[in-house]
């Protein structure tokens, strides 16, 4: 069981969350070519070590989060709200 420190709810079990995916992917514009979309959707890294990834606090505040996690040790280095304005607000509070 991972423990994830949601910036809105506090530290919670990972069973409250749903894993999203690689947060470093830059999705092409909707009118971009199929090749560009192919690379974004299918050409994925599978890093051993640190990865930025998205998690959804489904059974909590429902914020989408950017989590920095070591895929080998599960150590979590940072958790931020994915939306920059929400992240700024939450970090301003603390």
């Amino acid at each position, binding site marked *: 069981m991972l423990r994830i420190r949601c910036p809105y709810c506090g530290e919670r079990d990972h069973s409250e969350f749903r894993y999203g995916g690689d947060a470093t992917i830059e999705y092409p514009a909707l009118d971009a070519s199929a090749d560009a979309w192919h690379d974004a*959707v*299918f050409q994925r890294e599978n890093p051993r070590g640190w990865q930025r990834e998205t998690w959804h606090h489904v059974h909590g505040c429902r914020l*989408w989060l950017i989590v920095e996690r070591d895929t080998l040790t599960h150590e979590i280095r940072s958790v931020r709200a*994915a*939306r920059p304005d929400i992240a700024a607000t939450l970090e301003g509070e603390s």
Partner: protein
Amino acid sequence: MSSRVGQGGRYVDRDQVLTFRWEGGEYTGHPGDTLASALLANGIRVVGRSFKYHRPRGVMSAGTEESGALVTLGVGPRRDPNVKATETELYDGLQAHGQNAWPSLRFDLGALNDRLSRFLQAGFYYKTFMGIPPLEWGRGTGAWMWYEKWIRRAAGMGKASRAPDPDAYEQTHRFCDVLVVGTGPAGLAAAQAAAEAGADVLVVEQDFLPGGALLSDGGETSATLRRNRLQAIEAAGATIMTRTTVFGLYDHGVAGLIERVTDHLPAPPGEQPRQRFWIVRTRRIILATGAIERHLAFGDNDRPGILTAAAGRTYLNRFGVLPGRRIAVATNNDSIYTGAMDLANAGADVVVLDGRDMADNALVSQAERCGVTVYRGKSVSRAHGGNGVSLIEVSRRRQGAWMPDGSLACDALLVSGGWSPAIALHSQRGALPVWNEPLGCFLPGETDEAIDVAGAAAGVWTTEACDRSGAAAGSRAAAAVGYAATPKETPERGGWAQPLDALYEVPSPRKHVKSFVDFQHDVTADDIRLACREGYVSVEHLKRYTTLGMATDQGKMGNVLGIALMAEQLGQPISAVGTTTFRPPYTPVSLGALTGRAVDSHFKPLRRTPMHDWHLAQGAVMTEAGLWQRPWYYPRRNESLESAYIREAALARNTVALCDVTSLGKIAVQGPDAGEFLNRVYVNALAKLSVGKARYGIMLRDDGIVMDDGTIWRLGETDYFVTTTTAHAATVLAWLEELLEVRWPALKARVTSITDQWAGCAVAGPQSRTLLSQCLKEPDRVDSERLPFMGVTEARLRGDIPCRIARISFSGELAFEAYVPSDYGPAMMDLLWQEAKTRSGGLYGLEALGTLRIEKGHLTGAELDGRVTLEDAGLGRMASGRKHAVGSALRQRPALQQDDRPRLVGIFPRDRGETFNAGALLCRENAVEGFGEGWITAVTHSPALGHWIGLGFIQGGVQHWQDKGVVAADPIRKQPVAVEIVAPTMYDPEGDRLHG
């Protein structure tokens, strides 16, 4: 004959007597006994038969490593197999039976296997029954599965009850600063140090008494130390949980515990659960789990009456039971001497065979002064005595080889082959154990996690040093979690005066005598060597080939011995062989405890629409749709499902009928960019959707596959009401949230689930408009001019009930969907139903809903299964060519555009009187093979067409298969049925009926 000593047994209450039944006979014991100590006290030595060879087995240990005394506890639905008698707390009325023997434990026909054992070595079953010449005819999985049934019957453990478990279990949660596992000297000292520094400490003990090894000590010193520590821990506010096992350590300091709440009672009293599964979140963990004594490999080393040396001492000092009157002790280390003296002082004749050639030392002299005879350089090479050891053969070591050296009569043999720290929990976290040659054991490896190991689990052998080791770990833990604690010095490892001798096996002077390594799975030393010779030279392969360490004890007694023998065979050091991977659980965990209360109706959440009771009052039979309860059909008296749904569907086609559609996902999409957002999400042209209009919409995944379909209602300039399928409501909401927060954070739009806030009813049929208008405060709001097809209006029902209405149709008839705030759901149904009745209308459930949509070729989750493109579903024209939406780039991939992909089709039986099954494959006539050409997703009897129809997918679609021979193949359930492939819209293809 009772083996209970005249007095003593510090932790049993000898003033009270408990009665229990073993194998049908009545016996007595005392509170504080385990079943094992009570059986030994009653002189019972054979308590089970072994797994493979059916050899008689007795109690071998006094703890969780037990491999011999596996019994079946309880009767009837509470019958529990493979329970370790050494861990079973005795209670009044306990009933237990031996296992794996017929007709009786003392005379078991299965013991014939022992005679045949020359053939039953490692890999025997695979080699023989998976087919080798001349048995080639018996080769293959099918044959193996047939043999396996019989093999399993002969080789086995206890049998679980087939009846439902009458007991409840529960799951609960806890937090603590420091979790201390184990309450031996190290655990108690650690807990006290951490708790007194101020930390919130949870102490867990698997036994029913805290104290660990202190309980086995005869002297007053250990008893006093234990008492004082327990008092101090309690005074410092820490919690001690007994009868609780930490079975697994997980990421981020999370521990899994099983508390055996009422296992020590005949049945759980009142509302008590039988067991409780604790999920504990810790900041720091101290493992003071002790060490487990190993045995030695020698001939017939499994005879009843052969125990670990520490167990002999425990039975005497803790329970007041002498394991024998003439006791032989075989050892390769110092740890047995205190016990040998205790046993001699209790009146037993004790002879020690110490395999080491050692000089005089104080320990030996002290033992000799107590009357213990000590032989050096000697050990046991074989035991005799079928139902209990009576004689042992002795060997003497000369220049490294073992030579026969007489025999010794005895009625108990205690063995110590060294100690293995209990490092399973630590290793579960991925820290590789490290072999320590001088101590002859694996020690916990390095880890970055907040886990500390103290006492014997860290290779510290003496009680006094364990105490200091625990205190040091407790202080470290308290400091690590932020409390002021004085650092204490950690003692050195080891602690024996004379070093251990790396002795693992004493060969039997006679060949073909079994020396067991893993008693529970009957793995012998020869099996290990055979596996090595056959090339299974990785320890993981060795494990799987011989099943070493795969029994319920997970190799607690035998693994290190097996690894040592393998290392010897390979000529490698033990450190090069290593251990197998440790995984949870440390000890067996009942599935009931993991499931907790999530059984029967609590297995998953239950969702009911606000009209649930209303439907029941109308006689609805309910069914599950995901988590939802929905009306399935509304039978008139004695009406079958089939005749009910056909009648209900016909009502919708001919007059008017009502259907609860509350379970559809409903999402409010609001904000200045809501329109732009939806235009990017749905493939349809939505930019021009005007206020007061709705549209059918389809969303794709990034990869161009259909994700979901639904309707989009534009209620206002910046206010949209979106419906999804029942099945995908949660997925779609999460997806929309992801898009807004992760991908397009600049869009000013918000999504809110309002599924539970609005109750919905579909009103379908030629008379739906008149019916609905009669229910409205302003009846003309649903006139065809004011509310054309796909029109949306916000109106009020009679009684001033606010209502959203759209003229949309899933049934293909003139139809409306009306939504009211949830609390008004039953009132809306009352109003609509009253009007429906006067028109001979009716209600329709999920089954009739299915019929109507199949007739029209409309889609549900059965078709949108995550593999289907717009074109496959016949919806290619829905995609706007003038815009780009999610998935619109990748849906253009050539392979997704090929004409021979499976396409949605309708299916008729050629003989209209025939039927076929959903799930059947569509195959070419006379070519019922492989995956066929397609498959059937849904089947119904169509009242409109008067015969059975289906929907499905077939390669190339209807154009390719018109007038060709196709069959619905379902070989398991019925004969192939000839079918006709037709266009998916099987009823009213022009859609005229939508307009009433």
